[in-house]
């Protein structure tokens, strides 16, 4: 595959050269009566720069998008009187008359006013798109975290759960904020927050994403076919830009939901910079609301599950409510050193803590003068700690660079201990009896240095290039009773990647992005070449055709345990010669038609997947039991390798303008895997394969009220079911029951559907403060969705129980802005 990639790449390089020469030549000929228009776009109230905002010269093809520092340049704009149209989601669009002939090339400072839900008498021109919009690149979506407040939510405004409502993106259950993008799995998504790779992307066993929407300014989401700038993952990219904060005045907001409290403070620094501190913490360890209890009940086995009974038939470990909380903290310092230099330091810490310890239980000893106490200590904490420093410089109007250094540390530790203590006349005399101690510790540390450059050769030609170095270490340790090591694996590898991406207009309606990424990966001592290509052809102003093709390599795998309460058994492992890097090839083709109010889009995709990894948890759990098996096992024995494909077609109708807006999307998809060891080597549906998926989202604004609804329908999850039983008598005379199962994932759970509603009221009290208050109802018509089907194999006949997902769940929220 690598050799194949090399051939493809090398055959394209002469073509790139030809294009570059051609465009440079055109640029020289036609630049005589033209002049650049440049400047920055900011938030009027806070002075914060707006990233990826659009500016166009009305009635022409000239336009630009701001970079990560809010800077834009329209190269070789006509030297005539024109109107600049500036727009950004969540802000009022602005029309600015501008005479490019008389202008003195001074940098423009354009300020946009945020749209307030509170009605004004003044009619404003709002950016047409409300919550998300298709962006300039194929399969790229820009999401406005600011607008997510109006969508139905489950306790928290959640960026990832909102992304699940987009065509081609699905969640696997109510309990997961993970993104399954076009048949990919969550670990195949590259999640970047201010440039740093985030490995811990959710809270509460996956129920909420780990990103506080109040601390995020912009989300760029690439569903596939992403450019050479991004690498290391084979499915999608979620690039989050953290808020930098207000440079004009101190701002504070405080929010409260049924699960957590959060606050964001924005502190200006000498009018040229700002500090933003955002903190969110659940109070579930102090007050356990009905909402928390319903979520915990769901995560610990659903409404239908029975209390756990331990192996000796005792009921000492039956249902209990553990102490649990999560928090996240974002801090960012941004400062404009000069007109050309901008620095920022970003810090992120998110952590979940679960204490499942139980109060000691007394057991009387013989003689009555001593007693035993059975204790259980069980602590789990997992999270992410990371920071990044970025220096960006606008060398001149056309060349922009930024260098970023980031370090992240993901940790996941579980310590559990059971045993007995003896008390004699009230004095504890120490441990007695059989005690059990278990430690599971997974750690990922990632140190990355990135250099990204953008060189605008002309209005129709942009060259991006850069370097990406990263050093990743993973470790996973599982021990029992301090003496028995079940798994102990440390892996480390570094990679150095160089990329180039050349975006240019071949001729007026055709925009091509041609690039490639070359990665040296230390663990396999190999070079990986990933060519990328995308094209957008605008047949008319309203009708566009688009397509892309690219190859993607992934150097790390996340091994997931489906029993989510055993969270610590999830672990990351870097690829090596044995655990080969994953590889995908994307093919995407689509078209979109836009009117003033509507967007109609159709996009088809096909992904070839190689070196897929499956981890057989069942065998792992057996290896860890008892003393008769070898005390050390190699983790490699539990991995199975295969290939697969994912294909689908997405249909979308979006009403983007007006008080009533929203979208309706339908995705027809298929994901199939082939593993030699499974299903007799025949292809089988992946467990996250969803043949049909419909998302309907509508929002309606009436006065200070914003009403919204979302309805989701999806084909049931694929699963393997038992079909029959048989018995074998072992050498010791015991008879064991075995279950003959269906072909892998040959069955489907019932279809999934859910309707959510939300009502938000925005208020303003004079000029001192404003706020939002609202009610969200999850699963309004209380539809019984099946999470998984449980089979009690110990009974005869087998008892089949449907473990269900969340029923109707109302939540309240309030947010106040000072």
């Amino acid at each position, binding site marked *: 595959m690598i050799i194949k990639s090399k051939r493809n790449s090398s055959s394209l390089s002469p073509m790139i050269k030809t294009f570059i020469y051609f465009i440079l030549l055109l640029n020289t000929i036609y630049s005589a009566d033209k002049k650049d228009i440049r400047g920055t776009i900011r938030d009027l109230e806070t002075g914060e720069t707006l990233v990826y905002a659009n500016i166009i010269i009305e009635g022409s093809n000239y336009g630009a998008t701001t970079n990560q520092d809010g800077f834009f340049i329209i190269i070789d704009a006509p030297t005539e009187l024109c109107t600049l149209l500036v727009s950004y989601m969540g802000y009022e669009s602005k029309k600015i008359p501008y005479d490019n002939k008389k202008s003195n090339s001074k940098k423009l400072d354009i300020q946009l006013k945020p749209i307030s839900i509170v009605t004004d008498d003044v009619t404003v021109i709002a950016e047409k798109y409300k919550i998300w919009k298709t962006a300039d690149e194929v399969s790229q979506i820009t999401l406005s975290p600011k607008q997510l407040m109006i969508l139905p939510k489950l306790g928290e405004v959640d960026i990832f759960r909102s992304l699940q409502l987009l065509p081609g993106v699905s969640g696997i259950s109510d309990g997961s904020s993970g993104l399954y993008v076009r048949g990919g799995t969550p670990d195949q998504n590259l999640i970047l927050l201010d440039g740093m790779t985030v490995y811990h992307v959710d809270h509460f066993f996956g129920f909420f994403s780990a990103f506080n929407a109040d601390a995020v300014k912009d989300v760029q989401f690439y569903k596939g076919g992403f450019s050479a700038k991004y690498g290391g993952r084979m499915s999608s990219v979620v690039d989050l830009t953290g808020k930098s904060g207000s440079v004009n005045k101190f701002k504070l907001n405080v929010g409260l939901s049924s699960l957590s409290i959060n606050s964001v403070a924005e502190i200006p620094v000498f009018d040229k910079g700002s500090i933003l501190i955002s903190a969110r913490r659940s109070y579930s360890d102090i007050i356990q609301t009905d909402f928390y209890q319903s979520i915990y009940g769901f995560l610990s086995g659903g409404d239908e599950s029975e209390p756990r009974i331990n192996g000796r038939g005792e009921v000492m470990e039956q249902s209990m409510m553990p102490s649990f909380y999560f928090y996240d903290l974002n801090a960012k310092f941004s400062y404009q050193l000069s007109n050309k230099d901008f620095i920022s330091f970003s810090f992120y810490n998110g952590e979940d803590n679960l204490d499942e310890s139980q109060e000691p239980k007394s057991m009387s000893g013989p003689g009555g003068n001593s007693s035993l106490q059975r204790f259980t200590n069980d602590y789990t904490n997992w999270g992410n700690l990371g920071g990044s420093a970025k220096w960006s410089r606008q060398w001149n109007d056309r060349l922009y660079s930024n260098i970023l250094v980031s370090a992240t540390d993901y940790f996941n530790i579980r310590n559990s201990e059971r045993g007995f203590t003896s008390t004699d006349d009230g004095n504890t005399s120490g441990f007695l009896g059989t005690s059990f101690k278990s430690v599971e510790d997974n750690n990922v540390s990632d140190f990355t240095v990135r250099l990204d450059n953008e060189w605008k050769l002309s209005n129709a030609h942009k060259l991006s290039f850069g370097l990406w170095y990263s050093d990743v270490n993973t470790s996973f340790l599982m021990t029992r009773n301090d003496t028995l090591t079940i798994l102990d694996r440390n892996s480390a590898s570094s990679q150095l990647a160089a990329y180039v991406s050349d975006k240019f207009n071949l001729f007026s309606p055709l925009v091509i992005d041609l690039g490639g990424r070359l990665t040296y990966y230390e663990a396999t001592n190999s070079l990986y070449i990933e060519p990328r290509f995308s094209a957008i052809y605008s047949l008319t102003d309203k009708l566009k055709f688009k397509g892309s093709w690219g190859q993607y390599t992934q150097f790390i795998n996340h091994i997931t345990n489906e029993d989510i309460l055993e969270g610590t058994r999830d672990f990351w492992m870097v690829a090596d010669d044995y655990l080969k890097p994953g590889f995908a090839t994307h093919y995407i083709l689509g078209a979109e038609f836009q009117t003033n109010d509507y967007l109609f889009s159709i996009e088809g995709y096909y992904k070839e997947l190689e070196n897929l990894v499956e981890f057989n948890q069942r065998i792992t759990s057996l290896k860890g039991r008892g003393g008769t098996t070898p005390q050390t096992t190699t983790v490699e024995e539990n991995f199975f390798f295969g290939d697969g494909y994912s294909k689908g077609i997405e249909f979308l109708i979006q009403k983007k303008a007006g008080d009533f807006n929203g979208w309706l999307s339908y995705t027809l998809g298929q994901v199939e895997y082939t593993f030699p060891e499974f299903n007799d080597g025949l292809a089988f549906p992946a467990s996250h394969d969803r043949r049909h998926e419909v998302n309907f989202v509508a929002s309606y604004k009436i006065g200070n009220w914003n009403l919204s609804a979302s309805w989701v329908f999806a084909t049931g999850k694929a699963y393997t079911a038992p*079909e029959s039983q048989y018995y*074998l008598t072992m050498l010791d005379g015991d008879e064991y029951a075995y*279950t003959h199962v269906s072909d892998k994932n*040959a069955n489907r759970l019932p279809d999934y559907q859910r309707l959510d509603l939300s009502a938000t009221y925005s208020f303003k009290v004079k000029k001192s403060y404003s706020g939002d208050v609202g009610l969200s109802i999850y699963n309004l018509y209380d539809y019984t969705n099946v999470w998984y089907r*449980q089979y009690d194999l110990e009974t*005869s006949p087998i008892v089949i129980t449907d473990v269900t997902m969340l029923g109707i769940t109302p939540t309240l929220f309030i947010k106040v802005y000072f």
Partner: protein
Amino acid sequence: MKYKIRIIKYSIALFMLYNIMGCEESISTEIDQDLVVVQGFIYADQQVTDISLSEVLPLGSEDTLAPPISNAEIFISKGSDKYLLIPNEASKGFYYYPGNDLLISSGDELSLEVNVNDQKIFSETIVPPKPTNLELDSDTLLVPEFVMGRPPDLEYYSITLTWDNFDNSYYYVVIGNIEDAAEPIEVGSSKFSSRFVSKPSISNEYRVSFRTVTHFGKHLMILYRVNQEYADLYESRDQDSRNLNEPLTNIKNGLGVFSAFASDSVYFNAVQE
């Protein structure tokens, strides 16, 4: 009014889509009633008597005994020789070889062929070598008096069986009390009275503690050298309902196991301290 019409339009579209989706049928699970379960155990230096066939039980069945299959034609092949097994009339579903010319020895490569209901089922195995250098460090196992809160020293109240295992093979230990009227061990509670269940392991020793036995008296301890296909049966026992797998089997076109064993044995006495 305009919005109302639009809402109605959306609702109709949604309803139609829902109905289209609702027509899809989930993939039905068809139970293969013709599946044959084979349990074929061959022991070195013994007659072939322990071969049985049965059907599978449907999931909803309340039966605990699978229907035996007594109309099959079963052959055991050793080298170029083929031996026809006959049904055991006294035990439905079991088959045996009536002659004395089928001698089972370590190293024999055996194959099983079953013809039943127009199906051909096949399997093969190799008879493993007998365990060597079997040695028990004591022929007496002391059983302590149980005192709550003072657990006895397991090391002291144990005996250990050792053997050679240079090639990392699987071994399996079976312990049985051979007294006619064995006296049960009283521990004051039922906590330690259940029999300890072992499973095949790659080891060269086995420790028998007082917790392993349930009765006083003479015990027979058999050490089997077992093949991978037998060890796989223990790997297949536990099933997670969210990650079900077909139990491992070496039967082609059927279920179950065909395996061979070689064994040696020792004796010990369990006595009260």
